[in-house]
């Protein structure tokens, strides 16, 4: 380099330095900002305060009641509606993520018309005109020319669809739901004579046996059953209900069982028949006809302990433990096959289970046939496929698809794809996203999101659950109801708009009497008084014996050898509709702790046998196709099983879904079950082949083991009494006391710093690990409340995820099948290791005991994170972006952190401040239970509690004094303000 060049570079360098550094950041010119005034001030909007609107969640067919929080016209949070009988104020992570549906950056803002192979945006008026014209044309061309396939919708809208189609001399709409419970419905029809889905009074049971029914993940109504399960299974008066899970793989539900019996895939029915045999042997009165009883006895007699053990792979001892528990149980409830167990024997399993219930309790007092789950209106997959197959022979002129994605969700749905893309059929997809189905349509017509509409949807039959717009409209899209009414001839219309139609129908059905009732219903999110429960009056003598005999004679052999693949719906993505919500992708799977990806779960024995390693990329092949996925070693599946979650691997559905993970449905057989018409989610004849590539897993768990560090502790039910006896005093890993983070916990021999003085309050949290099911709803609530950044899979792999609260999963060192879930957030220690190492005092201990992170003070040394034994501090490696309009969801009470700043759980300080304000207004102190952090608010099983530790009567103080309470790594003398209650393991 010559002198001139050197000087040039130096010169340029100094100039760019000078330009880059503003001399005085405080007085640097700022871009001008605007404050926009409203035209009219709505009565219920106070700037700076959240208004809550009661509505109903439509993220899955369960129909939980929600309160949608609106701040200055935009929705910032959804929470459960405490008045709603389904979910009682709680919500799952998919419900929390409903906001990311309404604000999804890939949501279509206008209709799209297919022209010359591409898409052209058109206006809503144009699209409406085209729709009316096409319907008129189609209706004029003959009978049954307009067809409709819809997701499960409320009765009012479904009736309106039917009426509209009848006007066009066409058949009623086909209700499609990928998880349609065909087997359970058929079994209920056979045994109870009810082709429907009764709900269960699970909370009243003392023994629960599930043959794969994953009621804590996705089955029927997960939030409701999580609550009921915990009522039944929580420690109460020294004892707890028992729960057995019979399935070849665990899922979240099985991970919460007292005993998981890992039967061979397809052998659940054998276990159920074995149980039938044992129960019949007792000779109790059954209420069954003699013939049926005789015949059942005959069928079941073949399944003695040894045979069951041989066929299912369950040890004789385990099976005996199951039968013994059932024999002793006072109010047992047996649940059938899960969605993922849709194997060839699922109908037999469900029928055997129903018979078991009928024999154990002829009154079926734990069944509620009045409150049936709405999803029962869905057609069977066979009917859906058949309908589409017929479209190929006789294509309708117009096909309307309402928010369904069968092209993705149906295994081997070639006929569906063909029918939709058939040029003879004009297909209109009422869908807000370009998904696999709508890209094949001729016109994509976005309709309003459920948080923007008036409607009614009852997840169960009797109570009315209303929907109301909780915010202004983000797009000009109309509601489906309004559109349908428009297609009807003016003088035949029941009302001008769908809202009028809805109110009219509710009046005519006497759900409401007049305006006041309507307003009350809207305010409370529906009419929630449940009718008096009726007793079950079944068929005398039970079902026909011949039918049962015939059914069990066709019991297929369980998959005994070779590899079997199960595709299971997950708590995160349900049937795949959650895959475009970044929170759901970012929050890792409860069992694998892998985010963004779809690993294939395998038992270590399978890995050994196949010569594979954890984290290796593997090719999974069936005769339907193949896919590549990372291997995940786990003890939560039985040897020979390959388990993959459904929901990812979309080829279209927006930026968060496309190309993330893989879709195991591609590997499943296209045939439906001949008896039930349901899909197969399990298939045999699977081959795996090495690819030689190493996959990088986007997992957030450091380790599955605690390495003896006393993080997530358990206690045996029988040794509960010992907990109170021992007084611990040492500071070793095996012997450490619980020290309250209060001045009374100060010990001059141990503590270097003087105690913190608190003024009135010392906030603390208690986590009952025995109640925690690991569902991750708390984490989603935290993401929503605290503006936590989404980092994506690449950054998760680098360990840069931002979750303030993560539900850690640990394997029991003695039994790797036993998982313990531990919601971990900042422990707000009294002796906080983070505080003492920060060179700029950014972590600050406040008067109420909390550890504050002062963002603008933080210079990003990351010393605090290094010194934190709980590893709950998160560093912003980048300024995370919220693609428009996702930023509208951000909570204005919480700072959006930027690059170079450390952050962590704040105990939802914004809510604490709010409570302080309210208490000051009313000149009182804050009441116990008044402050509810986002995680505590949403927990379906009430595992979390928050309150003032200085108040001796507070819930959190009482929990801290529980003999099960301990502090994580208490031997470090950090004196955390989060108390964990040991999980109670009961031997069954």
């Amino acid at each position, binding site marked *: 380099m010559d002198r001139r060049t050197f000087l040039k570079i130096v010169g340029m360098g100094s100039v760019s330095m000078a330009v880059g550094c503003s001399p005085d950041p*405080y007085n640097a010119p*700022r871009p*001008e*900002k*605007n*404050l*926009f*005034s*409203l*035209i*009219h*001030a709505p009565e219920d909007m*106070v*700037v*700076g*305060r959240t208004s809550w609107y009661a509505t109903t969640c439509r993220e899955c067919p369960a129909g939980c009641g929600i309160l949608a929080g609106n701040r200055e016209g935009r929705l910032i949070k959804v929470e459960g509606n405490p008045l709603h009988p389904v979910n009682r104020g709680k919500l799952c992570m998919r419900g929390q993520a409903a906001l990311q549906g309404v604000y999804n950056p890939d949501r279509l803002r206008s209709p799209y018309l297919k022209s010359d192979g591409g898409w052209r945006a058109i206006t809503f008026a144009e699209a409406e005109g085209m729709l009316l014209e096409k319907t008129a044309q189609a209706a004029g061309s003959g009978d049954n020319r307009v067809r409709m396939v819809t997701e499960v919708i409320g009765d009012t809208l479904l009736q309106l669809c039917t009426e509209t189609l009848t006007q066009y001399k066409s058949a009623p709409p086909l209700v499609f739901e990928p998880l349609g419970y065909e087997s359970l419905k058929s079994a209920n029809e056979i045994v109870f004579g009810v082709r429907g889905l009764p709900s269960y009074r699970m909370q009243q049971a003392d023994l629960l046996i599930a043959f794969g029914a994953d009621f804590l993940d996705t089955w029927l109504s997960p939030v409701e059953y999580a609550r009921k399960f915990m009522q039944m299974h929580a420690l109460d008066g020294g004892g707890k209900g028992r729960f057995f899970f019979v399935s070849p793989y665990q899922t979240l539900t099985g991970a919460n069982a007292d005993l998981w019996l890992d039967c061979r895939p397809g052998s659940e029915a054998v276990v159920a028949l074995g149980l039938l045999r044992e129960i019949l042997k007792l000779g109790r009165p059954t209420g069954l006809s003699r013939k049926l009883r005789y015949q059942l006895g005959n069928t079941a007699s073949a399944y003695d302990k040894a045979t069951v053990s041989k066929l299912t792979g369950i040890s004789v001892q385990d099976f005996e433990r199951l039968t013994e528990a059932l024999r002793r149980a006072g109010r047992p409830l047996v649940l059938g096959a899960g969605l993922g167990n849709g194997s060839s024997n699922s109908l037999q399993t469900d029928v055997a289970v129903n018979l078991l219930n009928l024999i154990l309790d002829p009154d079926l007092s734990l069944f509620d046939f009045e409150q049936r789950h709405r999803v029962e209106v869905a057609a069977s997959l066979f009917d859906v496929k058949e309908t589409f197959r017929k479209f190929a022979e006789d294509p309708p002129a117009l096909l309307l698809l309402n928010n369904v994605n069968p092209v993705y969700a149906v295994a081997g749905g070639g006929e569906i794809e063909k029918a939709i893309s058939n040029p003879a059929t004009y297909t209109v997809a009422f869908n807000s996203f370009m998904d696999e189905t709508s890209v094949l349509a001729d016109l994509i017509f976005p309709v309003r999101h459920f948080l923007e509409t008036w409607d009614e949807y009852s997840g169960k039959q009797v109570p009315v659950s209303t929907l109301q717009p909780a915010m202004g409209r983000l797009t000009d899209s109309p509601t489906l109801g309004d559109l349908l009414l428009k297609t009807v001839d003016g003088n035949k219309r029941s009302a001008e708009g769908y809202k009028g139609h809805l109110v009219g129908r509710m009046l005519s059905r006497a759900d409401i009497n007049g305006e006041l009732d309507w307003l009350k219903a809207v305010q409370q999110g529906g009419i929630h008084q449940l009718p008096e429960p009726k007793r079950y009056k079944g068929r005398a003598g039970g079902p026909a014996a011949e039918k049962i005999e015939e059914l069990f004679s066709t019991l297929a052999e369980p998959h005994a050898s070779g590899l079997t693949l199960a595709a299971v719906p997950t708590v995160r993505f349900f049937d795949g509709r959650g895959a475009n919500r970044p929170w759901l992708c970012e929050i890792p799977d409860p069992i694998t702790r892998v985010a963004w990806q779809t690993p294939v779960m395998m038992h270590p024995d399978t890995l050994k046998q196949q010569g594979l390693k954890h984290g290796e990329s593997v090719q999974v092949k069936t005769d339907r196709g193949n896919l590549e996925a990372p291997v995940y070693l786990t003890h939560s599946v039985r040897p020979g099983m390959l388990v993959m979650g459904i929901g990812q691997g979309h080829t279209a559905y927006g930026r968060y879904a496309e190309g993330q993970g893989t879709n195991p449905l591609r590997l499943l057989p296209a045939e439906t079950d001949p008896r039930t018409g349901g899909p197969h989610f399990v298939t045999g004849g699977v081959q795996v082949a090495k690819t030689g590539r190493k996959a990088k897993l986007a997992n957030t768990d450091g380790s599955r083991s605690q390495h003896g560090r006393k993080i997530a502790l358990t206690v045996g039910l029988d040794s509960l009494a010992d907990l109170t006896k021992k007084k611990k005093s040492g500071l070793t890993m095996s012997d450490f006391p619980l020290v309250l983070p209060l001045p009374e916990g100060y010990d001059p021999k141990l503590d270097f710093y003087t105690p913190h003085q608190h003024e009135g309050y010392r906030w603390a949290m208690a986590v009952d690990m025995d109640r925690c099911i690991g569902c991750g709803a708390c984490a989603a609530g935290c993401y929503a409340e605290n503006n936590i950044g989404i980092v994506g899979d690449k950054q998760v792999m680098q360990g840069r995820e931002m979750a303030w609260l993560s539900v850690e999963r640990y394997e029991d060192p003695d039994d790797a099948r036993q998982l313990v879930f531990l919601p971990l957030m900042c422990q707000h220690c009294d002796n906080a290791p983070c505080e003492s190492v920060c060179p700029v005092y950014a972590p*600050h201990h*406040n*008067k*109420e005991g*909390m550890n*504050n992170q*002062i*963002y*603008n003070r933080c210079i990003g040394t990351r010393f605090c994170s290094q010194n934190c034994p709980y590893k709950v501090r998160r560093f912003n490696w980048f300024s995370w972006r919220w693609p428009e309009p996702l930023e509208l969801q951000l909570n204005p*009470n*919480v*700072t*959006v952190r930027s690059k170079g700043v450390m952050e962590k759980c*704040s105990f939802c*300080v*914004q809510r*604490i*401040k709010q409570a*302080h*304000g309210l208490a*000051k*207004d009313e000149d009182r102190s804050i009441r116990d239970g008044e402050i509810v952090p986002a995680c505590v608010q949403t927990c379906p099983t009430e595992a979390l509690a928050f309150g003032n530790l200085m108040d001796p009567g507070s819930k959190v103080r009482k929990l801290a004094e529980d003999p099960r309470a301990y502090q994580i790594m208490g031997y470090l003398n950090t004196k955390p303000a989060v108390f964990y209650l040991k999980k109670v393991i009961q031997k069954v």
Partner: protein
Amino acid sequence: MEVLITLITLAALTLGLLILARKYRVSLSQNKAAFFWTLVLVALTIGSLYLIYTPPGTRMGPEQPIPFSHQLHVGVKSIQCQFCHPYVDSSIHPGLPPVEKCLYCHNYIIAKHPQILKEHRYFNTKTPTPWVKANYLAEHVVFNHQRHIKKEIECQQCHGAIETMDRVKGRYFYMEFCIQCHREKKANLGCWLACHS
């Protein structure tokens, strides 16, 4: 006003120079050029200092879409602050008046004024008025108006003599400003519990 001050200063400077010249017996006629240039230099210095530090409009806030005068509405007409900023004692934000509220009065008072007609246009076309923000606070701080009003802190204590301002000047509130008062009044000094979150 500013121009007057400038002229007086310049005159005083000239006079001062003349007095100095007489005192040191410097002939004005012999050093005409030097005097002229000295004067020009001094004038330029003062002029540029003035332009840098107190340009016209420094004491005024940003130009607003409608030249609303707080001096007239608060000072002369004595309208209560809460009439237009209704949530000040019940929420963290005081709130801005909706366009509708302006027209409660201005449908009758100077109804045909061109600026009021502009207001009508905002109303008729449902356009939110794009007022320009004058007061700034760091985004990691939540200031709660309600709490301060409940403690009977006058609006003017932070916002200045609003009743004398035509175009509100506003300010950038720094931590120093808040903390001084919080110290004097023995108010909450906890980082999170008081301001940050």
